[in-house]
């Protein structure tokens, strides 16, 4: 596509980057068909191609972002479905990140919105604060109707999303090493995450058990924390970069202590961001090389396990598992087959959800910031899940799990929780009623050679 930037504009590295991305787009429009907001709203401005156009005009005009542009960019889920569809290889992810940062720098927001954004950025990345906030949520629950009436839909959405009961803390919070009892075959760093370990601590526990059983030491590095995705997608680039640097520092220290085979993430939204650290920090001379190294080591847990032979499962079931591919996994990291394969090899009967490329509406904090669209997408997804009548749903991202829990009439769990269960772990939280359909695989009787010789 033709662009109109002055040489002076192009001397700015960010504009130059945007320009090179824009030049790839041929405006063919294929992306519109798989964009959740376009499918829902039928408005070019809420499609990837339309947003690319809005961004192009905004940057070319070198003017502050208008309310209109801000509105339509805010409505983008960053699900990156468009990138899976785009035949021209337009790097929409980096374009929208860049545009969001531009919008935050050049345009203001009303007080209510600033308040919600502050709250989110100030609470979610910190497990202690988040736990505290969830404990407070019941106090707000009677007031959600009133909040909505006064235009605080986002605050109401926040309160609605908070779980009624706080699950117990995880077995292993780190920092430290969860060492394998088997012969050590690999050593990995695990991102312990932020919101996930509060909402569903079983995910980290399952991951550690699953890995440890296969001879993998799992390290949670001291000083590591939230990956920064949350703040990044709220347009707070500087804040996100601080989080990224903290993790790069913490993990580089671990790398110095001994060989690391991978940096594992079990929340695909975070994984996508860690894989992008190299790009996020490329303009920071002190960090660029180290960040690139970290990104190169980053793996989703299913990606890492996919390369391992997990062997026959310990438990057998005929449970019908609807696999919900998180957008950050299928579009962001292009990991499509591994989680399905792992689940099937573990003995589950895996079924695909119709329209599985369309986002469930979670998208980080999107379900709080854009409750209306997120709700419509959630309902569409729930309907599609119900159509295939599964016993439960498995997904690789905590956002999707929270978004869908309670919306479909079956439990929603993380892929690794199911895997861990099949390979000998405890029943995942919420699946207790299904446990009676799962039985132990009988151990083959061990016979020695002499049993045959002297028979």
């Amino acid at each position, binding site marked *: *596509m*033709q*662009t109109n930037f002055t040489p002076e504009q192009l001397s700015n590295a960010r504009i130059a980057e945007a320009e090179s991305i824009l*030049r*790839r*787009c*041929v*405006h*063919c*429009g*294929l*992306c*519109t*068909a*798989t964009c959740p907001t*376009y499918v829902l709203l*039928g*408005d*070019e*401005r809420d499609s990837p*191609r*339309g947003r690319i*156009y*809005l961004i192009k*005009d*905004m940057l070319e005009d070198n003017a502050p972002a*208008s309310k*209109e*542009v801000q509105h339509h960019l805010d409505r983008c889920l960053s699900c990156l479905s468009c990138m899976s*569809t*785009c*035949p*021209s*290889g*337009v790097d929409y992810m980096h374009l929208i990140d860049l545009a969001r940062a531009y919008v935050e720098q050049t345009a203001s927001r009303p007080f209510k919105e600033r308040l919600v954004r502050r709250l989110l950025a100030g609470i979610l990345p910190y497990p202690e604060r988040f736990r505290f906030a969830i404990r407070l949520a019941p106090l707000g629950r009677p007031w959600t109707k009133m909040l909505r009436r006064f235009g605080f839909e986002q605050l109401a959405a926040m309160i609605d999303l908070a779980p009624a009961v706080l699950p117990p803390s995880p077995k292993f919070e780190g920092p430290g090493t969860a060492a394998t009892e088997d012969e050590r075959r690999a050593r990995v760093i695990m991102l312990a995450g932020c919101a996930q370990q509060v909402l569903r601590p079983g995910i980290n526990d399952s991951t550690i058990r699953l890995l440890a059983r296969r001879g993998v030491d799992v390290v949670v590095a001291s000083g590591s924390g939230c990956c920064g995705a949350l703040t990044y997608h709220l347009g707070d680039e500087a804040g996100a970069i601080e989080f990224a640097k903290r993790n790069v520092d913490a993990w580089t220290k671990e790398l110095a202590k001994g060989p690391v085979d991978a940096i594992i993430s079990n929340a695909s939204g975070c994984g996508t961001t860690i894989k992008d650290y190299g790009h996020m920090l490329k303009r920071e001379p002190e960090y660029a090389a180290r960040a690139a190294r970290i990104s190169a080591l980053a793996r989703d847990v299913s990606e890492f396990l996919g390369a391992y032979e997990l062997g026959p499962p310990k438990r057998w079931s005929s449970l019908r598992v609807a696999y919900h591919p998180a957008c950050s996994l299928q579009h962001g990291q292009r990991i499509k087959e591994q989680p399905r394969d792992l689940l099937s090899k573990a003995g589950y009967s895996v079924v695909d959800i119709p329209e599985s490329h369309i986002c469930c509406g979670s998208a980080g904090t999107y379900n709080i910031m854009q409750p209306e669209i997120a709700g419509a997408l959630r309902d569409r997804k729930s309907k599609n899940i119900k159509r295939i009548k599964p016993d439960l749903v498995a997904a690789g991202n905590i956002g999707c799990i929270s978004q869908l829990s309670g919306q479909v009439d079956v439990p929603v769990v993380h892929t690794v929780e199911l895997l861990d269960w099949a390979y000998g772990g405890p029943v995942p939280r919420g699946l207790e009623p299904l446990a009676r359909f799962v039985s132990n695989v009988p151990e083959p009787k061990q016979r020695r050679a002499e049993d045959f010789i002297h028979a």
Partner: protein
Amino acid sequence: MTLSRMPEPDRAVLDRRDSIVKDLEALIGVDGVISEEEGRRAFEADALTAYRQAPLAVALPRSTEDVSKILRYCNQNGVRVVPRGAGTSLCGGALPTADSIVIGTSRMNRVIETDFINRTITVECGITNLAITDAVSAEGFFYAPDPSSQLACTVGGNVAMNSGGAHCLKYGVTTNNVLGLKMVLVDGEIVEIGGAYPDSEGYDFLALVVGSEGQFGIVTEATLKIVPKPESARPVMLGFSSCEAAGQCVAAIIGSGIIPVAIEYMDRPAIAVCEAYAKAGYPLDVEALLIVEVEGYEDETTRLLRDIVDIARSFDPQVIEASTSAEHSARIWKGRKAAFGAMGRISDYYCMDGTIPLARLPEVLSRIAQICAEHRLKVANVFHAGDGNLHPLILYNANDQDESNRAELAGAEILKLCVAVGGCLTGEHGVGIEKRDLMEVQFSPSDLAVQMRIKSVFDPGWLLNPGKVFPLSVLEASGERPAADQAA
């Protein structure tokens, strides 16, 4: 690349913009009208981005009745209208004028009725082509015409352009698959043409409306044929060391009486780009690749593939490789279908669309190469060889004005060549703005005069999709005058 000029906007309409917007909002609601500048600019081009013009406003109706209200209003007020589906046109079919209202059908995308016994489906026209197949595929059916943009393009656009696609060799183009239409005429009247039965009573208006490029009215619903999916379908890839050999092979397959579902052609540059995108296992060291697909009962496809491979052997192919699995077939098609977009990875491109008699294929291909070389441009060829529908992609740099102009000139020469060898200006993309000024190459003045009179019957004020199809000079010289001139 803007050698074709658009008609002058109607000043009086431009001046009334605010009141027109207000009136439209009153008709279909505030959330159905886009009037801010940035928003309008997002509609300034379709997939032919060389031509751009933001419209006066955009209306996004939700029903046939909405469309009717808008058209009645525009007709009464002398406001031009540009229909738009998904904006995937490669000939600028949805290019607005500054004084026009774009009517986008994207919100009208419901399936109205499916009838598996009579094998028909009735849909709103903003539904995407592929969504029709999705709606009937669980029952074992599909909708046959498959433009490469089928993921995104709408049926309304397909009807307007009489779109084709790879599989049209066997199933025909859009016009062969439409049974009935609901259309809003320029004065807002809603008419139904044809219906869920073959043939039409009286004149065959369907044939007239399909391919009329949104200049006769706005189609809002369509009743279409759906066909049962074959038991098996398998492509074979045939690689050749010269385009002549590939061209002769195509002619020989068709000449033998076999009707494959599709015969697709890619040349070396196109193969490289598509392989990089789709990883379909295309051979990279051949000059020309044919993808020939056959379908039917399992035994039938096996036999047909064998016959085709036998025919191909006499043209000394370097590669003969049949698809090994459904997944492999999907990848082979994914690369072909995304060819245009994938070309965007390496360059801007200008996608041509002409047809030629099959026997002239080798000669035309070498002439195309020559023309592009003369204009110092690169070209890649990806097209439907089975029915002689060429799509040379002329590669150019959109940020280089001189190169853009050369691309457009080379394109015009290629299309003239198609006509000269006994072919046609348009295969399946339509005329739009892109081929408008070449219409005189194809048609005599009296041909064009008759066509313009037909257009005047449907749209006496020439308000619908202005500036397209008929060269402005011809139009201005004729008795059929566009609305703006009448007003002046």
